[in-house]
């Protein structure tokens, strides 16, 4: 799966602020929300951005902090829009 790292080794707060500031279409989900077969880790609310066919969301690793990823995900966008 191709992905772009927008922010790396950062905090959940910085990721949320980046998504809220830089994308017009933003959805808020709870921790444990499933995307691309992973369950999102974070402090609620977790902001997920949508830009074209891409979703922008935080991905947390215990030793490296939180990364903000951009991945093409039409079905994930459809799920977000359906709520």
């Amino acid at each position, binding site marked *: 799966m191709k992905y772009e790292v927008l922010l790396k080794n950062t905090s959940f707060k910085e990721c949320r602020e980046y998504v809220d500031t830089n994308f017009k279409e933003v959805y808020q989900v*709870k921790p444990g929300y499933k995307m691309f077969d992973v*369950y999102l880790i974070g402090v609620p609310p977790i902001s997920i951005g949508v830009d074209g066919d891409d979703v922008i969301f935080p991905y947390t690793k215990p030793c490296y902090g*939180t990364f903000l990823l951009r991945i093409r995900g039409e079905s994930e966008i459809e799920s977000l829009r359906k709520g």
Partner: protein
Amino acid sequence: MSNALFLLGCPESPVQTAIALYLANGLKRESIDVTVAGTRSAIALLKVSDPEGNYVSKTVDLDSCIEDLAEKKVDFDLCFVFVRNDAGISYLSTLNSISDAKLFAIVFGSDADALASMIDFECEKIVYKTGHNPVPLKNRIDRVMKWDV
């Protein structure tokens, strides 16, 4: 209470493994079954320190554990989340959202106080600014757990 989950963070600080084994020992003496979730390295540190499983008999992959909790396939009576960095706060908040367990935050490392101040939901906080010496953190755990000796 019959079971407990330890959710380990980055194993960079030596305090984590020592406290996890100490706490597992105390809970085992109270007949509480302990499962430990963590990264491959964090689990390996535990298994090398406790090769015969005297303190910890069950370990699970961190991602699998989160998946099973989120899917409500499993839950625990108690959950201890080890917090040493911002990612630890994210995992703690996630556990607060996806589990009904009584939640304990074991917060340590050089940023312990700042990290503890970020916890804005109900949980038992056990906090000490230490990375190498586990004894002050152990003493705080003893105060909270009130072991039946």
